């Protein structure tokens, strides 16, 4: 069900505005999707290979490395408060700088 931000048809008292309103309403009209030939589609689907596996593995490894870094919880709070950042951002930056609060802050002030 495609949603619509349009309310009931609004009252307009000029022809131009009526046309504008009608044209904008068309943007969100219900339209059937165009269909494609089924037999050819199956061949095409086979050619779309999943190449995201390697990327995902690399990301997981990175996250594992960061999770192993020891950090001071008080530093996270200080950085989040003084630099008005989300705690997750503060924590991640601290991990990326191996727990060195001064280095992390200097990076964030760039």
């Amino acid at each position, binding site marked *: 069900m495609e949603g619509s931000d349009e*309310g009931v048809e609004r*009252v307009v008292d000029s022809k131009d505005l009526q046309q504008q309103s009608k044209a904008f309403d068309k943007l969100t009209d219900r339209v059937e*999707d*165009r*269909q494609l030939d089924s037999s050819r589609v199956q061949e095409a689907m086979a050619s779309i290979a999943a190449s995201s596996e390697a990327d995902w593995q690399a990301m997981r490894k990175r996250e594992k490395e960061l999770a192993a870094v020891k950090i001071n919880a008080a530093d996270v709070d200080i950085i989040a408060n003084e630099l008005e950042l989300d705690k997750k951002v503060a924590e991640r930056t601290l991990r990326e700088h191996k727990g060195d609060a001064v280095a992390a802050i200097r990076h964030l002030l760039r």
Partner: protein
Amino acid sequence: MGASLPSKEANLFKLIVKSYETKQYKKGLKAADAILKKFPDHGETLSMKGLTLNCMDRKSEAYELVRQGLKNDLKSHVCWHVYGLLYRSDREYREAIKCYRNALRIDPDNIEILRDLSLLQAQMRDLSGFVETRQQLLTLKPNHRMNWIGFSVAHHLNSNASKAVEILEAYEGTLEEDHPPENERCEHGEMLLYKISLLEECGFLERALEELHKKESKIVDKLVYKEQEVSLLVKLGHLEEGEALYQALLSMNPDNYRYYEGLQKCVGLYLEDGQYSPDQIDRLDSLYKTLVQQYKWSSAVKRIPLDFLQGDKFREAADNYIRPLLTKGVPSLFSDLSSLYNHPGKADILEQLILELERSIRMSGQYPGRMDKEPPSTLMWTLFLLAQHYDRRGQYEVALSKIDEAIEHTPTVIDLYSVKSRILKHAGDLVAAAAFADEARCMDLADRYVNSECVKRMLQADQVALAEKTAVLFTKDGDQHNNLHDMQCMWYELASGESYFRQGDLGRALKKFLAVEKHYADITEDQFDFHSYCLRKMTLCTYVEMLKFQDQLHSHAYFHKAAAGAIRGYIKLHDSPPKSTAEEDDNMSKLLPSQKKKMRQKQRKAEARAKKEAEEKNEESSASGVSKSGKRHIKPVDPDPNGEKLLQVEDPLSEATKYLKLLQKNSPDSLETHLLSFELYTRKQKILLALQAVKQLLRLDAEHPDSHRCLIKFFHKVGSMNASVTDSEKLIWSVLEAERPTISQLHEKSLFEANNSFLEKHKDSLMHRAAFAEILHILDSNRKSEAVKFIEESTNNIVPRNGALGPIREWNLKDCIAVHKLLGTVLADQDAALRWKVRCAEYFPYSTYFEGCHSSASPNSAFNQLRKNSENESPNHSVGGQNVGSITSNGKLEAFKDLTI
């Protein structure tokens, strides 16, 4: 599904859904009510009824019903989906996404929910999620064209253009050889152009060119085809082919500057900085002489040489360019030439040239060296051009004399009054500028352009009520100036916001600035419907361009002005909060009992009056809602028309921070962004963030007076902080110790020495001297008199001729006003401020701020002359009755009643 319905009611439920999809909401409501009569607790029906009501502007009912429906049937994906749609319509996208995910947990392969989720992900730029969702949709329904296109675009946006190409090629593999059918030619052509632009973006230039040629017959948009082809040819180094193609494009549109630029590149004669060698200039000149023969009617081919020619050749070409336009009477000639004033030496050449034309026409009615007689209007247009020339060079006295002569020559030309208004504005007489803009407006009451220009001048002169009355002449009847807000008329809101701010009305100022911010929020939302529409229409290049534009939307200058204005307003509100009710009560308690009683009565009366006015206003609003068709069109009444509630904000600085973050993200290369950041964070005691602002200022322009001010102020403040006690303070101090050595301005220097060193480099600049003096005072308040004396000893030197554009004297009005304010506030020396004012009144005789002898604040001013003339024309007017407010909206056409031509 939860409780399932009998077949009759199940069909009615399908009707509700269909009615919703086709926007037949009343029909949907009827069907829902029919079901609820028998099954009053059916969750999905309650939800759908709520969603339908939401589309009929009955939002509170909608939420109530949807929540009830969900509560009754927590395991229904329909109920969760509907809840998400409801949140989305209120732009609560994160909540909506949560609801969709809950719905998908129940029904993982629901196409409709996945599609709605993908729209939200596109809107929120969750691009990896978007790719994932589009992939799922393609897997589920691979025979839908839109799913292939959506998946491809998702990869493109997620920075994987080559993957996007692969997907489009796979999609093409599904098509018949004779594709597209006639009714899909445009769509298919657009898709092909998109694919080729992807190949170009990936750097596969040869492949892109090959594909372009191969698909030529299927691409409908021939102009984009050619432009794409020439872009690829140039990048591949096929310059001869590129040159031929640019010639073809020029024959289609010889006024497109980019084609000329491209042609110059192909023949090896284009430099980004425009610094051509004499040999290159000669070759360019030959090129354009050839081109001018081919495109006789093009303005561009005659105008572009003025950019690269120098000296006598420039003078000759400019002369040839200007003469026919003066004869024709082209009012925009100066605008056309104005960029040349930034080139060294050209302003002087233009001045000599135009003066010579003026002299010759005066004496003989002919151009120099010509026998043909010029029409009488040529002299007027020459004077018009000269007036703008001297205005640009800061010689306002001469500019005004030229424009006055032109007006005397032909008093009915509207442009003359507009230019006079602009000259007076630059000279500092905003009141007179508004008066002459109004004069121009009255000469053509049907032209909204002169109306708007007049409104803007009135706002600059802080005549807000008059400006509003004037603007209303072109708004819809009954809507008053609310119509300007509805039509997103930002220039008006910015100018009136700035006027209210200058007058100290913070509530109204904030109201206007926040209105502009809301327009930008609305524009951001406007893209939502196009995420599905553009995939259907296949206008993919334009869609991607729109998305990139939206990503930088808040970089626009208007947003910057509004956000900066709002931040300044909130800072001022923080520094000088309005008197609270408690304080007023305290004052009351000191009064005598009888006075207390009177005060209370007065208060009650005032409240009653305000209430009555509000009620009347509501009645007016609702009355205007009844349109011709008789239906009531209820507009929501503005609960805070004068911004009074905005003044009651509990924490102005945190409100300001919201807008500051947008500026920091979108206007990081603006000094003003970081100046505001410094002011805000010092007040919030966020030392590290203030340091960040200082670092940004130094990065952008370390020699700017404001950068210097902030740098020294910051370290002066830090130096006076107490020793670190808390962990937080210790950490901050460690960062400061690590950062200070990286700031070269402070190497091995005390703050005093840094200030002196700064002055040494800029001792001839007024604004740098003022910054030095201010800092001297801040570092040692005992040296105030020394600082004041230093400013007063500054010299307003004559600028050498033949430089780039510059005024005859170095100082400009804006800087002198800033210094006056500095003397009167930070340095708090009223005598010095007065002396400065008297001195500047000499330099700027038209400035109302300095009450110069020619300003509206003086009896001899242009504005007062205008009033005198008006009185002469209408002897029955009482002398005392004349004032700005008396200018009528129907103009003063009686001034021209006796005019004969």
